[in-house]
C-alpha cells in the first residue's frame, strides 16, 4: 500500500467535512438567489466557494494531502496547465468577440 505519512481522518471527521461541504453548497445556492443584494461580488464569491469545496474533496476525501509528492505535483501540474492554457484561449477568443465584431 501507499506510504502515507500522515494518519487518515476518522469516519467522524469525514462526516464533519461533509457537513461543511453541505453548508457551503447551501451558501452557494443562497448567493444565487440574493445576487441583487451582493451585486458584482456574487460571481467571485461563488467561484471562491467552489474552489473551497474542490480543495476539501481533493485534499481529504481523495487523500491528496496525505499522498506522495509525485502524485501531488502531477495533479497540480494538470490543474495549472489547464488553467493557464484555457485562460489564454478565453482571453483571445473573448477579445475577438469584443473588438473585431
Amino acid at each position, binding site marked *: 500500500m501507499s506510504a502515507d505519512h500522515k494518519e487518515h481522518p476518522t469516519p467522524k471527521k469525514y462526516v464533519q467535512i461533509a457537513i461543511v461541504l453541505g453548508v457551503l453548497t447551501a451558501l452557494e445556492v443562497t448567493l444565487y438567489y440574493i445576487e441583487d443584494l451582493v451585486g458584482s461580488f456574487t460571481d467571485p464569491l461563488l467561484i471562491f466557494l467552489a474552489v473551497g469545496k474542490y480543495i476539501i474533496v481533493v485534499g481529504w476525501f481523495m487523500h491528496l494531502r496525505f499522498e506522495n509528492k*509525485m502524485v501531488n505535483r502531477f495533479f497540480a501540474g*494538470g490543474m495549472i*496547465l489547464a488553467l*493557464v*492554457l484555457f485562460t*489564454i*484561449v478565453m482571453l*483571445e*477568443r473573448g*477579445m*475577438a468577440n469584443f*473588438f*473585431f465584431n
Partner: protein
Amino acid sequence: MTKIIEPAKRTNIFRRPSSEYGFWSWVTTVDHKKIGIMYGYAAFFFLLIGGLEALVLRIQLAQPDNSFLSAAEYNAMFTMHGTTMVFLAIMPISAAFFNYLLPLQIGARDVAFPRLNALSFWLWVAGGLFLYSTFIFGTAGAPEGGYLAEEVGWLGNAPNGGWFGYQPNAGFKYSPGTAMDYWALGLQILGISSLVSAFNFIVTIINMRTKGMRFMRMPVFTWMTFAVAFLLAFSLPIIAIALFYVTFDRQFGTTFFLVEGGGDPVLWQHLFWLFGHPEVYILILPAFGIVSEILPTFSRKPLFGYAAIVFAGFGIAFIGFGVWAHHMFASAISPVAQAGFGLSTMVIAVPTGVKIFNWLGTIWGGKLNLKTPMLFALGFIGMFVIGGLSGVTHSIVPADTQQTDTYYIVAHFHYVLFGGAMFGIFGGLYYWFPKVWGRMYNETLGQIHFWTMMIGFNLTFGPMHWLGLQGQVRRTWVYAEETNLGFWNLIVSIGAFIIALSILIFMANWIYSRRKGEKAPFDPWDARTIEWTIPSPTPVWNFSKAPEVKALDDFWHAKYDEDEEGRAVRRDTADALLLQLEEEGLNPEEEIELPNPSYFPIILASGLPFFGYAVIYKSIPLALIGAVLLLVGSFGWAIEPLEEEFTTKEEEE
C-alpha cells in the same frame, strides 16, 4: 539446452490462449517486445502507404497545370499523407521503440500494465484500419450547392480537409459525405490508444525501475519517453474533445464551429494546435532520445551534459505547451498574442540548442565509429538544425505571415520530421537491430541507404525552401505555368523517387539480414546501457535476474575504468563479465512468472470501430455489436487474473 518457459494451461471461464509461436501468439501476446515488433512492422507498412501517397502528390506537382490527379484526389492524398505519416507512421514507430526498449532500459520484465499495452496496440490497429476503410466506404464531394464535372473516384473518397481539418471547411456543410467522419472518428480511436499507452509508460517509468535505477541514472531515451508520455497525456484530451465537437457538428446538427449557429471556427484552430504543437514534439523527442543513445556509444564517450540534455528535453516539452498559436500568426489573433507567441516560440530554440551543442560536445574529442547508426545520428543533427532554424524564421511573426501556408513551411516540417524524426528512427532501427533479431544488418547496404537517403532527402525538401519563399502555396493541386516554379518542382519530384529508392534499399537490407545476417553478439557496439547486458535476441523473460544498477551507463562502467588522464581503459575482468552475463542471460535460475497472453485486449479494441461506423451510419445494430465486444472484452479482462504460474522445463534444442 535451453530452458523453455511455459505458462500452465489453466482455464478460467475462457480457455487461456497459450501458443508460444505462430499467429495466435502474436494476436494474444502481452509481451512488450512482441507488441513493439508488431508496432514497428505495422507502422512501417503505413509509412510505405504514406510515402506512396507522397509520390502520387509529387507526380501531380512535377509539372505546372498537371492533370494526373483530380482536385478531389489531390486533396484527399495530402490529407491522408499528413495524417498517415503523423499518426500511423512516426508516432507508432516511436511507440515500437518505447515498447521494446523501455522495460529493457530500466531493467524491468514488462511494462506496468501489460494487457493495457496490448490494448493500446490493438486500438491503434483498429483506428488505422478504420481510418483507411474510408477508401472503401467513405464518400466525398463538392460543398453543398457546388458542382463537380466528374464523379469522385475511389482515391478521392478519403478525408480531404487537411491533416489539421480546419473548420468550417471540414464540417458537414463544406465537406459533405462521410470521409471527414472517418477522419474525426479514426483520430479519436488513435487518440485513445495513445492516451492509454501514455498512462502505461508514465507508471512504468515511475514504478518499474529496477533496483538502483534512480531517475538520474535512467538512459536519455527513457527520459524522452517519459517526456513524450507527459505530452501525450496532457495534449490528447484537448483534441479528443475538439474531435467530439466535430463529430457532433457533422452528425447531430450542433454548430460548435459554424458561425451561422453561433459557433467559432477559430476556436477549432486553438484547440487543434493546443494539441498539435505538443504533438510535433511528441514526434521528435523519441528521436532525440535515440540519438542521445547512439552518439555516446559510437563516440566511446559519455553523453556530454547528461543532466542538461534531460532537463532541456523537459524544457522543450513544457514550453511546447505554450506556443500553439504560432500556427495561427496569420489567423485572427491579436497583435499582443502574436508578440507573445512569437517570443515563446523563439525561446524553444534555447533548450533545443542546448541539446544540439551537448551532442556536439559528445562527439568532440571522441573516437567516432562511423557505422550506419552513427551516420544517421550525425545526419540527424545536420538536417534537424536546418529544420529548426527555419522554424526560428517562422517565429519572426511578420516574416511568418509571408511564409505561412507556403512550401517554405512544408520544407520546415519535413526537415524536422524526416531529417529529424525519421533519421533518428532509422538510426535506432540499425542500432538495435542486433538486439531484436540476434543478427547483424549488412553494413555496406546500410551505408548506401544512408547516402541515397541523404541525397534524395535534400533534393526533395531543400528546394521547397525557395519554392515557398517565391510563392508556391501549399495544398495546391495545380500551380500556374507563369509562376515559373516548374523546374524546381520537377527536381523535388525526382528527389522523392530517390528517397523511395533508398527505402527499398533499406527494406532489402532488413529482409536479407534478418535471415542471413551474421549472428550478433549480445553487445556488438560495446554499448553503455543495460539492455545490452542480455542476450540477442532478447529472451522472453528479458533479465534472468533483476539487474542492480550502480551508476549512469552502468554497463559501460562495468567494462571500463578511467586512467589518470581520464581515458577509458578496459577492465581486465570485462571479458569474463561478458561471458558470465551471456551464460546467465540464457539460463534463468529462478522460476519466472510472466504475464499471460490474453484474448481480451483485441476483443475490446475491435469494439471501437463498430461504434465509429454506428455513429456515421446512425445504426443501432452496429452500436450493439460494438457494445457487446466492449462488454465481453472488459468483463473477461476484469475476471482474468493477469498471471499464472509458469513451469520451467528442460528441452532439447
